[in-house]
Protein backbone atom coordinates (compact mmCIF):
# COMPACT_ATOMS: atom_id res chain seq x y z
CA UNK A 1 0.00 0.00 0.00
CA UNK A 2 2.97 2.32 0.37
CA UNK A 3 2.95 3.14 -3.33
CA UNK A 4 -0.73 4.08 -3.33
CA UNK A 5 -0.62 5.82 0.07
CA UNK A 6 2.91 7.05 0.68
CA UNK A 7 1.92 9.14 3.71
CA UNK A 8 -0.12 6.51 5.51
CA UNK A 9 2.83 5.18 7.47
CA UNK A 10 3.49 8.48 9.27
CA UNK A 11 0.70 8.05 11.79
CA UNK A 12 -1.08 5.19 13.44
CA UNK A 13 -3.87 3.81 11.27
CA UNK A 14 -5.98 0.72 11.77
CA UNK A 15 -8.28 -1.38 9.65
CA UNK A 16 -11.89 -1.17 10.86
CA UNK A 17 -13.76 -3.36 8.37
CA UNK A 18 -13.19 -6.19 5.91
CA UNK A 19 -13.03 -5.37 2.17
CA UNK A 20 -16.45 -4.72 0.63
CA UNK A 21 -17.12 -4.00 -3.04
CA UNK A 22 -20.67 -2.88 -2.24
CA UNK A 23 -19.96 0.67 -1.11
CA UNK A 24 -17.28 3.26 -1.66
CA UNK A 25 -15.72 6.10 0.27
CA UNK A 26 -18.35 8.60 -0.84
CA UNK A 27 -21.14 6.38 0.46
CA UNK A 28 -19.17 5.67 3.64
CA UNK A 29 -18.59 9.36 4.29
CA UNK A 30 -22.32 9.92 3.83
CA UNK A 31 -23.13 7.10 6.25
CA UNK A 32 -24.40 4.60 3.66
CA UNK A 33 -23.01 1.08 3.38
CA UNK A 34 -25.68 -0.22 1.01
CA UNK A 35 -24.72 1.49 -2.26
CA UNK A 36 -21.82 2.55 -4.43
CA UNK A 37 -22.23 6.30 -4.92
CA UNK A 38 -21.33 7.48 -8.40
CA UNK A 39 -22.83 10.02 -10.84
CA UNK A 40 -25.03 8.01 -13.18
CA UNK A 41 -25.59 5.30 -10.55
CA UNK A 42 -26.62 6.81 -7.25
CA UNK A 43 -25.93 10.46 -6.43
CA UNK A 44 -27.84 12.79 -4.10
CA UNK A 45 -28.20 15.54 -6.71
CA UNK A 46 -29.05 15.41 -10.39
CA UNK A 47 -25.84 15.38 -12.39
CA UNK A 48 -24.41 14.04 -15.61
CA UNK A 49 -23.05 10.50 -15.47
CA UNK A 50 -19.98 11.95 -17.15
CA UNK A 51 -19.27 14.49 -14.41
CA UNK A 52 -16.45 12.98 -12.36
CA UNK A 53 -15.15 16.28 -11.05
CA UNK A 54 -14.43 17.50 -7.53
CA UNK A 55 -17.26 19.97 -8.11
CA UNK A 56 -19.72 17.09 -8.55
CA UNK A 57 -18.50 15.67 -5.25
CA UNK A 58 -18.80 19.04 -3.53
CA UNK A 59 -22.38 19.39 -4.82
CA UNK A 60 -23.22 15.95 -3.45
CA UNK A 61 -22.11 16.91 0.04
CA UNK A 62 -23.82 20.30 -0.18
CA UNK A 63 -27.02 18.37 -0.87
CA UNK A 64 -26.38 16.49 2.38
CA UNK A 65 -26.18 19.74 4.34
CA UNK A 66 -22.45 20.38 4.25
CA UNK A 67 -20.82 23.77 3.68
CA UNK A 68 -17.23 24.64 2.91
CA UNK A 69 -14.94 25.12 5.90
CA UNK A 70 -11.35 26.09 6.43
CA UNK A 71 -9.52 23.06 7.72
CA UNK A 72 -9.64 19.65 9.35
CA UNK A 73 -9.54 20.83 12.98
CA UNK A 74 -12.44 19.46 15.05
CA UNK A 75 -15.25 21.95 15.73
CA UNK A 76 -17.77 21.45 18.49
CA UNK A 77 -21.17 20.56 17.06
CA UNK A 78 -19.92 19.90 13.54
CA UNK A 79 -19.11 16.83 11.49
CA UNK A 80 -16.53 17.27 8.74
CA UNK A 81 -15.56 15.61 5.50
CA UNK A 82 -12.41 16.03 3.43
CA UNK A 83 -12.56 15.77 -0.36
CA UNK A 84 -9.61 14.61 -2.47
CA UNK A 85 -8.94 15.11 -6.16
CA UNK A 86 -6.35 14.01 -8.68
CA UNK A 87 -6.29 15.81 -12.01
CA UNK A 88 -9.72 15.79 -13.55
CA UNK A 89 -11.22 13.29 -11.10
CA UNK A 90 -12.58 13.41 -7.61
CA UNK A 91 -10.89 10.50 -5.95
CA UNK A 92 -11.86 10.21 -2.32
CA UNK A 93 -13.85 11.47 0.63
CA UNK A 94 -12.97 10.94 4.29
CA UNK A 95 -15.19 11.61 7.30
CA UNK A 96 -14.18 12.95 10.70
CA UNK A 97 -15.10 10.81 13.69
CA UNK A 98 -16.39 12.21 16.99
CA UNK A 99 -12.95 11.54 18.51
CA UNK A 100 -11.34 13.89 15.97
CA UNK A 101 -9.70 11.10 13.98
CA UNK A 102 -10.81 10.24 10.43
CA UNK A 103 -12.36 7.26 8.69
CA UNK A 104 -11.84 6.27 5.07
CA UNK A 105 -13.17 3.48 2.89
CA UNK A 106 -10.34 2.60 0.52
CA UNK A 107 -12.08 1.92 -2.78
CA UNK A 108 -13.27 -1.68 -2.96
CA UNK A 109 -11.05 -2.59 -0.01
CA UNK A 110 -11.36 -2.00 3.72
CA UNK A 111 -12.32 0.94 5.96
CA UNK A 112 -9.52 2.44 8.02
CA UNK A 113 -9.31 4.89 10.90
CA UNK A 114 -6.46 7.38 10.55
CA UNK A 115 -5.07 10.54 12.09
CA UNK A 116 -5.53 13.06 9.29
CA UNK A 117 -7.09 13.25 5.80
CA UNK A 118 -3.60 13.92 4.50
CA UNK A 119 -2.61 10.38 5.51
CA UNK A 120 -4.41 8.98 2.45
CA UNK A 121 -3.21 11.74 0.11
CA UNK A 122 0.00 12.13 -1.84
CA UNK A 123 -0.46 9.07 -4.03
CA UNK A 124 -3.42 7.41 -5.69
CA UNK A 125 -5.91 9.95 -4.32
CA UNK A 126 -3.93 13.06 -5.21
CA UNK A 127 -4.35 15.77 -2.60
CA UNK A 128 -7.01 16.98 -0.17
CA UNK A 129 -8.69 19.82 -2.06
CA UNK A 130 -11.58 20.82 0.18
CA UNK A 131 -12.97 20.53 3.70
CA UNK A 132 -16.69 20.69 4.42
CA UNK A 133 -18.74 20.64 7.62
CA UNK A 134 -22.34 20.29 8.76
CA UNK A 135 -24.01 20.72 12.10
CA UNK A 136 -24.43 17.39 13.86
CA UNK A 137 -27.92 18.48 14.97
CA UNK A 138 -29.00 18.49 11.32
CA UNK A 139 -28.35 14.78 10.93
CA UNK A 140 -29.74 13.47 14.24
Amino acid at each position, binding site marked *: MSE*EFPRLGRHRARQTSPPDVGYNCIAWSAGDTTRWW*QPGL*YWPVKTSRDD*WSVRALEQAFRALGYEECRDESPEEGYEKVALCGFGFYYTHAARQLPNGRWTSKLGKAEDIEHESPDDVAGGLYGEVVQFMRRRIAEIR
Partner: protein
Amino acid sequence: MSTMMEPALQERFEQLKNQWKVQSKYLSNTAQMAMLWSYQQIIGMGAPVLPLILAELLHETDHWFWALEAIAGENPVPAEAAGDVAASADAWLEWGRSKGLLRDNV
Protein backbone atom coordinates in the same frame (compact mmCIF):
# COMPACT_ATOMS: atom_id res chain seq x y z
CA MET B 1 -10.40 -6.97 -37.98
CA SER B 2 -8.83 -10.18 -36.68
CA THR B 3 -10.87 -12.80 -34.87
CA MET B 4 -9.43 -13.91 -31.56
CA MET B 5 -9.81 -17.64 -30.91
CA GLU B 6 -11.53 -18.56 -27.62
CA PRO B 7 -8.48 -19.86 -25.66
CA ALA B 8 -6.50 -16.78 -26.65
CA LEU B 9 -9.44 -14.57 -25.76
CA GLN B 10 -9.77 -16.22 -22.36
CA GLU B 11 -6.05 -15.95 -21.67
CA ARG B 12 -6.00 -12.31 -22.66
CA PHE B 13 -9.07 -11.58 -20.54
CA GLU B 14 -7.49 -13.27 -17.51
CA GLN B 15 -4.33 -11.19 -17.88
CA LEU B 16 -6.22 -7.93 -18.23
CA LYS B 17 -8.69 -8.80 -15.47
CA ASN B 18 -5.89 -9.58 -13.02
CA GLN B 19 -4.14 -6.35 -13.93
CA TRP B 20 -7.34 -4.34 -13.50
CA LYS B 21 -8.16 -5.95 -10.15
CA VAL B 22 -4.81 -4.82 -8.76
CA GLN B 23 -4.99 -1.34 -10.28
CA SER B 24 -8.58 -0.65 -9.23
CA LYS B 25 -8.55 -2.11 -5.71
CA TYR B 26 -8.34 1.23 -3.91
CA LEU B 27 -10.29 3.36 -6.40
CA SER B 28 -13.69 4.79 -5.46
CA ASN B 29 -14.52 6.60 -8.68
CA THR B 30 -15.91 4.10 -11.18
CA ALA B 31 -14.91 6.36 -14.06
CA GLN B 32 -11.28 6.12 -12.95
CA MET B 33 -11.58 2.34 -12.82
CA ALA B 34 -13.14 2.23 -16.28
CA MET B 35 -10.49 4.47 -17.80
CA LEU B 36 -7.67 2.16 -16.77
CA TRP B 37 -5.94 0.78 -19.83
CA SER B 38 -6.64 -2.84 -18.83
CA TYR B 39 -10.39 -2.19 -18.53
CA GLN B 40 -10.44 -0.28 -21.80
CA GLN B 41 -8.72 -3.23 -23.48
CA ILE B 42 -11.42 -5.56 -22.15
CA ILE B 43 -14.16 -3.30 -23.52
CA GLY B 44 -12.30 -3.24 -26.82
CA MET B 45 -12.55 -7.02 -27.06
CA GLY B 46 -16.24 -6.51 -27.80
CA ALA B 47 -19.17 -8.93 -27.71
CA PRO B 48 -17.03 -12.13 -27.63
CA VAL B 49 -15.81 -11.20 -24.14
CA LEU B 50 -19.32 -10.89 -22.66
CA PRO B 51 -19.53 -14.58 -21.53
CA LEU B 52 -16.14 -14.24 -19.84
CA ILE B 53 -17.13 -11.07 -17.98
CA LEU B 54 -20.42 -12.62 -16.89
CA ALA B 55 -18.68 -15.80 -15.69
CA GLU B 56 -16.25 -13.62 -13.74
CA LEU B 57 -19.14 -11.62 -12.28
CA LEU B 58 -20.77 -14.87 -11.18
CA HIS B 59 -17.50 -15.96 -9.58
CA GLU B 60 -16.76 -12.66 -7.83
CA THR B 61 -18.84 -9.48 -7.70
CA ASP B 62 -16.99 -6.45 -9.00
CA HIS B 63 -17.56 -3.35 -11.07
CA TRP B 64 -18.02 -4.92 -14.49
CA PHE B 65 -21.27 -3.03 -15.15
CA TRP B 66 -19.64 -0.20 -17.08
CA ALA B 67 -17.97 -2.66 -19.48
CA LEU B 68 -21.09 -4.78 -19.84
CA GLU B 69 -23.23 -1.75 -20.70
CA ALA B 70 -20.61 -0.34 -23.06
CA ILE B 71 -20.34 -3.62 -24.97
CA ALA B 72 -23.97 -4.73 -24.86
CA GLY B 73 -25.45 -1.30 -25.47
CA GLU B 74 -28.14 -1.87 -22.87
CA ASN B 75 -28.55 -1.79 -19.12
CA PRO B 76 -30.85 -4.33 -17.42
CA VAL B 77 -30.37 -2.86 -13.92
CA PRO B 78 -33.68 -1.38 -12.72
CA ALA B 79 -33.53 2.28 -11.71
CA GLU B 80 -34.30 1.51 -8.08
CA ALA B 81 -31.29 -0.81 -7.89
CA ALA B 82 -28.81 1.76 -9.21
CA GLY B 83 -25.74 1.79 -6.99
CA ASP B 84 -26.73 -1.50 -5.32
CA VAL B 85 -23.81 -3.63 -6.43
CA ALA B 86 -25.30 -7.01 -5.51
CA ALA B 87 -28.63 -6.21 -7.20
CA SER B 88 -26.81 -4.88 -10.26
CA ALA B 89 -24.80 -8.09 -10.49
CA ASP B 90 -27.98 -10.16 -10.21
CA ALA B 91 -29.65 -8.13 -12.97
CA TRP B 92 -26.70 -8.58 -15.32
CA LEU B 93 -26.41 -12.31 -14.55
CA GLU B 94 -30.10 -12.75 -15.27
CA TRP B 95 -29.63 -10.79 -18.51
CA GLY B 96 -26.73 -13.09 -19.42
CA ARG B 97 -28.83 -16.18 -18.82
CA SER B 98 -31.69 -14.78 -20.91
CA LYS B 99 -29.25 -14.17 -23.78
CA GLY B 100 -27.63 -17.60 -23.46
CA LEU B 101 -24.31 -16.00 -22.54
CA LEU B 102 -23.95 -17.49 -19.09
CA ARG B 103 -23.69 -21.07 -17.95
CA ASP B 104 -24.07 -21.35 -14.18
CA ASN B 105 -21.85 -24.44 -14.01
CA VAL B 106 -18.81 -22.53 -15.36
